[in-house]
């Protein structure tokens, strides 16, 4: 009777919990949709399906053309394995969610006692089920569901951050390649100058000292070229990493030069408002408040009676028949009345709330800062392009006339040319800063807020991952 009762109770509990199984791709379509809506990029979770092959082919065909920033982002989305690894966060959160819905398994307790005097041993059997699971499972499930939502936001954020990172790396590399080109021209100018110096020296017209001075200039320019080449190589490798490219896939070439500054200034009204409205970080922080709230509810509920085990015990003593009776275990809240757990959960909640507000302030500020960076870089780039570069060109042209009139020599003329190119370097830098700031703005518009240095603000989980990946 008691055994039957126990079985019955077990079945009942089983019925309460249901047959919970884990679907590891749950939530990914939502993330894909969010990413596509916010950054117009398609993501694929590479898990050994036919879709994988399709993605691989797309990557191959993209790598064959001269890459734009958009192409680079798409390749990275499809091909970067670290990003794939981040998707596993989703699976983990889903597993946690399923786990939270499972009852604790019943405990079967059996004991045999051999009396010292008697012949027959005593048998003791008990089946104990955690009674309050029935109450707590829904609570735990709510916590886990909130955590799963949080995980989805975190992964979406990481993907969007990743697109921004690829974009930034692309512009940095594009600028570096242009720098190499400019530095090469400077070397060419100073080498030509050195060549003339050598001839003057050979003719006996300048001293060893003058020749050495000229040579130092030319040689120094080569060091700067080498340095620029190295920078370009480094940024190329950075991009290779982000693109997930290796082997022959690393032979990609980028599309010419950085795009010019758009004629019309970018008018973004209420960048702060956009940043706040679109912010995944804020949603994430809000979700953490919810998680903390759920956690607090659970803690409160389970504070006084953290565990009540209910069961049946059966005993057969000696040759006597079975004695069956219910059993209950209740911890006496003498020492731990749950106050620490409640306080902890309440503190977590308060922290989540403060972080939410702090994040709002930072997002507003960062949005304004990015807007200013765009405006400043745009002004600088246009100033170089429209004022300084033409003036430098004019100096070279006028210098040519003065050279014709024997007022200045070839050295001065080539130095002016070198300075013109150096101004070109400054222009490229301003242009790069502009596009980097634009990438940051795009990140804001997709709901993520970059730090002034292009890192991440808020979002602890995602941030850690991104930082690890950036680790340089």
């Amino acid at each position, binding site marked *: 009777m008691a055994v039957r009762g126990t079985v019955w109770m077990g079945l009942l509990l089983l019925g309460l919990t249901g047959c919970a199984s884990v679907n590891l791709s749950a939530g990914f379509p939502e993330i894909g949709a969010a990413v596509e809506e916010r950054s117009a990029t398609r993501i694929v979770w590479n898990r050994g399906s036919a879709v994988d092959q399709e993605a691989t082919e797309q990557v191959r065909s993209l790598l064959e053309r001269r890459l734009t920033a958009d192409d680079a982002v798409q390749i990275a989305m499809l091909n970067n394995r670290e990003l794939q690894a981040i998707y596993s966060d989703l699976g983990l959160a889903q597993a946690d969610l399923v786990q939270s819905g499972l009852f604790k398994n019943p405990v079967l307790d059996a004991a045999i006692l051999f009396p010292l005097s008697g012949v027959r041993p005593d048998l003791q059997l008990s089946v104990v089920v955690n009674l309050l699971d029935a109450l707590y499972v829904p609570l735990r499930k709510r916590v886990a569901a909130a955590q799963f939502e949080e995980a989805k936001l975190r992964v979406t954020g990481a993907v969007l951050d990743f697109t921004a990172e690829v974009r930034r790396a692309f512009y940095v590399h594009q600028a570096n390649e242009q720098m190499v080109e400019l530095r090469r*021209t400077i070397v*060419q*100018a100073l080498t*030509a100058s050195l*060549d*003339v110096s050598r*001839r*003057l*020296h*050979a*003719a*006996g*017209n*300048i*001293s*060893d000292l003058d020749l050495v001075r000229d040579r130092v200039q030319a040689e120094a320019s080569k060091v700067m070229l080498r340095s620029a080449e190295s920078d370009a190589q480094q940024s190329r490798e950075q991009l290779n990493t982000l693109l997930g490219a290796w082997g022959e896939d690393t032979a990609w070439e980028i599309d010419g030069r950085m795009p010019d500054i758009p004629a019309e200034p970018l008018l973004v009204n209420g960048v702060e408002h956009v940043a706040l409205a679109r912010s995944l970080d804020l949603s994430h922080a809000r979700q953490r408040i919810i998680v903390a709230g759920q956690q607090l509810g659970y803690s409160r509920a389970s504070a006084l009676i953290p565990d009540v085990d209910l069961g049946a015990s059966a005993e057969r003593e000696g040759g006597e028949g079975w004695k069956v009776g219910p059993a209950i275990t209740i911890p006496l809240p003498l020492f731990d009345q749950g106050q620490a757990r409640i306080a902890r959960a309440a503190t977590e909640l308060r922290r989540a709330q403060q972080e939410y507000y702090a994040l709002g302030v930072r997002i507003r500020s960062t949005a304004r800062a990015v807007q200013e960076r765009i405006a400043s870089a745009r002004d600088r780039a246009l100033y170089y392009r429209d004022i300084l570069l033409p003036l430098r060109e004019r100096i*070279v042209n*006028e210098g*040519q*006339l*003065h*050279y*014709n*009139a*024997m*007022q*200045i*020599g*070839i*050295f*001065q*003329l*080539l130095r002016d*040319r070198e300075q013109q190119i150096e101004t070109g370097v400054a222009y490229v830098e301003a242009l790069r800063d502009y596009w980097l700031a634009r990438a940051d703005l795009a990140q804001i518009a997709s709901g993520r807020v970059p730090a002034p240095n292009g890192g991440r603000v808020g979002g602890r989980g995602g941030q850690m991952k991104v930082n690890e990946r950036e680790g340089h």
Partner: protein
Amino acid sequence: MANRLSRRQILGIGAGSVAAGAAWTEAGHSKSHNQPPGGRAKETGGRAYWQESYSGGPPNVAPLAPGLPGDHYKPVVVPNGAALPFKIVGGVKVFHLVAEEVDHAFDSGLRANCWGYNGRVNSTVIEAVEGERIRIYVTNRLPVATSVHWHGIYLPNGMDGVGGLTQPYVKVGETVKYEWTLRQYGSFMFHSHHDEMTQMGMGMIGMFIVHPRNPSPDYRVDRDFSLMISEWAVKAGTARPNTVEMTDFNVLTINGKVFPSTAPLVCKTGDRVRLRLGNLGAMDHHPMHIHGYHFRITATDGQDIPLSAQWPETTVLVAVGQTRNVEFVADAPGDWAFHCHMTHHVMNQMGHEFPNMVGVNPQGIDEKIRPLLPAYMTHGHTGMDMGKMAEVMPYPPNTISMKGATGPFGDYISMGGLFTIVKVRDDLASYEGDPGWYQQPSGTVALKANDDDLARDGIDVNDGAASPAPRSGGTGPPAPNRGHRH
């Protein structure tokens, strides 16, 4: 003084008489005229000459009647310039000098905003006659105060024109009056004496010629040129003299012009020629050199030199602040160069930053540099004889760097600056204008030697021993001093 002048008159009439000569000696500070070889006048000199006066004597002399051109003196020739007009009011010769800004052309390729007198720069000449009273009104149309100093002239202290010392400044818009009686003759100058570095650097200078009253026949010449030498700092491509420049003067002018804009000194064969040279440049003395003749230096700073002290020269040094008269008889027809012998002074706006490219092997340089500077062309490796190139290569605006002129043989006369040509002709319809290039009689021009001549005289141009050894192996310098380490 009247006494002296009367003696001068006597001298004029009866020059060469023993009595006159004695009187001259007694008078002491009267001057000797230029003496042609075999001149009749006795020379003066010795201490007695100096004892009476260093300053022309007492200033309160009674003036003589104003002298008139043609009647009382033969006007000087002012190439590229003109004498200041005058009128006679109550027995006084009245001039009006106007200090003003002038848009001045040094040459067809170079203009600058200068300051000058009466619309001219360096070439307005005041011409007067010994013994007359002159009154010079000076109107200041400059944006700053000025003053005028009469350089080398005896006058009352208050007329000396040193702004702040002997008179208040001539303020902007003001007209002041200078007046005194001329007690000497000779070649003098006038110039601003307020902020001289700026105002003279801007061109406020001129010659002041005083003719002797009743000059002796010995003094008379057929061509009497007034030539003011000066120097300027006008950087290529600029349009105003740099008056803070202290050493680097790159435009050197005669009467404000550079060759080829300097008007030639036109003479007829046999003319007696006087060149009155004044130098009011900032820093440079000029050894002015004539070709084809020797001349005699006949006067310095308005004082005649006794014949016995004159010596023949082909070059006369005219230091800053000095005047020199030189005279010669133009008996050799031709086009004769007259120029400063400092080679920088017969160039124009040379640049200091142009490296010495002479002897540099230019091969392949253009190809290397043109990708960077498409208009580049190596030059200067054979020197600065590139006048022709100057005409095909674009120059900065307002520049006459390396400019010269094409000469009669089609070759370029690679000179500028302090350079002019004395043109002496047997037949000359008029002294006005440029008579063109001299046609040398055939057989009198250095031309390419013909084979017959070479054969006749045994000149083998291919024989290294017979001619200066051609440099073989290019232009190797003396081995550079290497390994000189301490």
